[in-house]
């Protein structure tokens, strides 16, 4: 029965293009996200070079706007989000004792649409029409009158396509966590990282559709002369701000919650203690997710919504500081009295705590509406969000990467280089952004390509630029670490940190393609730690060894996403200055139609063709296990 359908198994490049294995998809997300992180970082360095002295002319004002826009957009949507997805893919199924995710095919689709959306956005550099209206793309700046070229079109369509990928990815994780937990893995036994992945996915589900609609409306305005944001046609520019921030504020929590999860795991492991206040951590995470939807107008205090609206949003915003504070204290109490090991992963985690507190404090300062009239659109805001995003999320991601690297790749990163990464990056980070608080308070506006001499901005900007280069060096050291490590043999044991508490440390590193030879039986929170404390060597199985069913790979997700990419181009260049045949096929929307056709055809093929998958037989399984 099991071998009734012989299945083609791909190797090499085709394996990566067709994979539906969440662990491989995690690696793909990591590579793509890392690649965009380098691009975004490079853009940041160019920005900082431009600003190192007053009246510099390293780049033109126009180029500066492009760099600034692409830096923000790239970092948030194409670097931070995918690297979060990388860790969620690599780790969440292992933490809940699942053999696979709920929708392996959709998961692959999510990756490829993200990648093609990101590529579309960045092709703008080659096309010579780069988005330059800021990552928030405010109107009327981004409308066809003030941004006539194709630049903002790349933003609209690139993000739209990448956004679809994120949305379906989020649904996949929600269903995986709800339906695929191992026996005994109740919700209140789930590791904190899984909890944060769960809430983040819920936020994605309810926040991203708002962005989808906003981008559609902006696209219609730009491509089909609609009037959503066109004031002369009765449109309303503030409407865009509402839509963008109804999505945008939950988005910042989408970013930070996984970092909270990572920090919880790492601090607990390396303090050799149970996470302090686990249930209050869960509660705080849920509450943050919930409140995150009620505060969007704190980005719009200066728009003129009136004192009542400002007061309400001000209070709602400050409320979020409460659950956030709970978490901070829980981390401190977890470390309290623990036998702490300062591995590279833990350095990042411990460094995260005070840094993130600083970002939270400036957040609450900004939340005071009257004071925000002073801070708004100044470098103070820039300092705030870099403290929470770089000092929070990015440190969290570095921590998670150092911690889970052996589980993902089977090799331990070098601890020495890891610690060097930490110190250069950490010091560089504070040099870059600490002074920006004061630049903001002195009145330096954000998003302006230069500043005058004699305003007292000079030395702080110089320090900031030096710090940025230090962060760049930290990143390079991390890359060297990766390369050095890749040359080492795959020797990581199941539980290389020896203090692993959760299920992923009960299986080989890297995890075999079926994750768990036998589904584990979970007997408590910190499932593996509990077995260790009871004197057991590993998890007790919940089932006998039997054939394991696996989904087969498919090239369709890749082609479907490629179709969307083509369609994006088609719509964008329907209005073009070319001549002859090329002009015609674009102008008649034939290219756009072709792209959509490719995607729809793939959907139909997918619907009609059943995937029976294949089975891995017990003999094959045990043989592998022995060899390991």
């Amino acid at each position, binding site marked *: 029965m099991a071998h009734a359908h012989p299945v083609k198994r791909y190797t090499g490049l085709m394996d990566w293009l067709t994979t539906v294995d969440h662990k491989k998809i995690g690696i793909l997300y990591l590579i793509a996200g890392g690649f965009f992180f380098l691009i975004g970082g490079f853009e940041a360095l160019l920005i900082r070079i431009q600003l190192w002295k007053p009246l510099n002319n390293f780049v033109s004002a126009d180029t500066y706007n492009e760099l600034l826009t692409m830096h923000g957009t790239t970092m948030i949507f194409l670097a931070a989000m995918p690297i979060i997805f990388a860790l969620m893919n690599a780790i969440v199924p292992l933490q809940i004792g699942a053999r696979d995710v709920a929708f392996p095919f959709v998961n692959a689709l999510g990756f490829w649409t993200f990648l093609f959306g990101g590529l579309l956005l960045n092709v703008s550099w080659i096309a010579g029409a780069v988005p330059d209206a800021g990552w928030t793309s405010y109107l009327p700046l981004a409308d066809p009158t003030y941004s006539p070229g194709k630049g903002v079109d790349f933003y609209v369509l690139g993000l739209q396509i990448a956004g679809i990928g994120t*949305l379906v990815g989020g649904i996949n994780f929600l269903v995986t966590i709800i339906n695929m937990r191992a026996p005994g893995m109740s919700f209140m036994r789930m590791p904190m990282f899984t909890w944060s992945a769960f809430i983040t996915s819920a936020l994605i589900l309810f926040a991203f559709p708002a962005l989808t609609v906003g981008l559609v409306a902006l696209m219609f*305005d730009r491509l089909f002369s*609609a*009037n959503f944001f066109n004031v002369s*046609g*009765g449109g309303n520019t503030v409407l865009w701000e509402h839509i963008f921030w109804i999505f945008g504020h939950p988005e910042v929590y989408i970013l930070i919650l996984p970092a909270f999860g990572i920090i919880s795991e790492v601090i607990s492991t390396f303090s050799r203690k149970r996470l302090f206040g686990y249930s209050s951590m869960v509660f705080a995470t849920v509450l943050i997710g919930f409140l995150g939807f009620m505060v969007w107008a704190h980005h719009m205090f200066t728009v003129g919504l009136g004192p009542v609206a400002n007061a309400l949003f001000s209070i709602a915003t400050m409320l979020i500081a409460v659950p956030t504070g709970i978490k901070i204290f829980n981390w401190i109490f977890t470390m309290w009295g623990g036998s702490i090991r300062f591995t590279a992963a833990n350095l990042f985690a411990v460094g995260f705590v005070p840094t993130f507190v600083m970002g939270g404090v400036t957040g609450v300062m900004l939340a005071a509406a009257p004071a925000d009239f002073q801070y708004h659109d100044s470098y103070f805001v820039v300092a705030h969000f870099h403290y929470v995003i770089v000092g929070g999320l990015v440190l969290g991601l570095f921590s998670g990467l150092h911690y889970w690297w052996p589980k993902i790749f089977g090799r331990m990163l070098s601890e020495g280089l890891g610690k060097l990464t930490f110190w250069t990056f950490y010091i560089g980070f504070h040099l870059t952004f600490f002074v920006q608080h004061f630049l903001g308070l002195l009145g330096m506006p954000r998003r302006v390509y230069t500043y005058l001499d004699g305003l007292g901005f000079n030395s702080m900007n110089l320090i900031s630029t030096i710090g940025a280069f230090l962060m760049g060096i930290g990143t390079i050291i991390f890359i060297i670490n990766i390369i050095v490590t890749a040359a080492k043999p795959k020797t990581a044991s199941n539980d290389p940190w020896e203090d692993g508490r959760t299920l992923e440390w009960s299986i080989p590193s890297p995890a075999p393609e079926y994750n768990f030879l036998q589904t584990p039986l979970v007997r408590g929170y910190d499932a593996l730690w509990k077995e260790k404390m009871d004197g057991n060597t590993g998890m007790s199985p919940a089932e006998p060894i039997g054939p394991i069913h696996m989904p087969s790979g498919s090239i369709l997700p890749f082609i479907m996403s490629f179709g969307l990419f083509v369609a994006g181009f088609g719509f964008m260049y329907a209005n073009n200055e070319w001549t002859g045949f090329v002009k015609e096929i674009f102008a008649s929307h034939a290219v756009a139609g072709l792209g959509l056709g490719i995607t729809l055809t793939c959907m139909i093929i997918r*619907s009609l063709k059943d995937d029976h*998958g294949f089975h891995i037989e017990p003999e094959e399984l045990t043989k592998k296990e022995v060899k390991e």
Partner: protein
Amino acid sequence: MSAHSHLDGELPHEPERATLEGRNKVLGFWLFLGGETVLFGTLFSIFLALRDQVGDGNPTGQELFKLGTVAIATFILLTSSLTSVFAIQAMHRNHVKAMQGWLIITVILGLGFLGLEIYEFYEYIHEGHRFSTSAFSSSFYTLVGFHGAHVLFGIVWISLLIFQVARKGLNVVTAPKVYVAGMYWHFIDVVWVFIFTVVYLMGKVG
């Protein structure tokens, strides 16, 4: 565990939930509809914010909307929701022929709705209510058009399923698909009820 060990033999009582794959699909689809709710919620908000921005000399909703046609369309779509329920009931009783019949009727009703909508848009355009006329017209066509596109997608999808069931029969792989398509169809209906109220009835009142 695996879907295909159930492929042959007796069909379980609720075939859409018989396998983990099926349960995943149903849950995933509920969540997807949650996202769709936000999507339409945002479209409704935009419409409400812009519906009075008609511009000088352009027809208002009050002048344009013909409640008669819209009421017929509403009636057709609501009926199609009922026929899709009959289809799922037939599926649960394992009456494959009846299920297919009801699905075909659902598709035909959906096509009828779509035809009326296209005719309606066609008339509006002749009365000077084009997509780019005003903020009102842009938000009207986007909201109602998004719904129409969903109907179209549903028609294509359910037709494909009818074809699939004819070829492969009803089993634990096809049953969740039919069930989920039924959920989708109800969702579209609910959205339409809101469009009928918010766009047309409120528009007629002014």
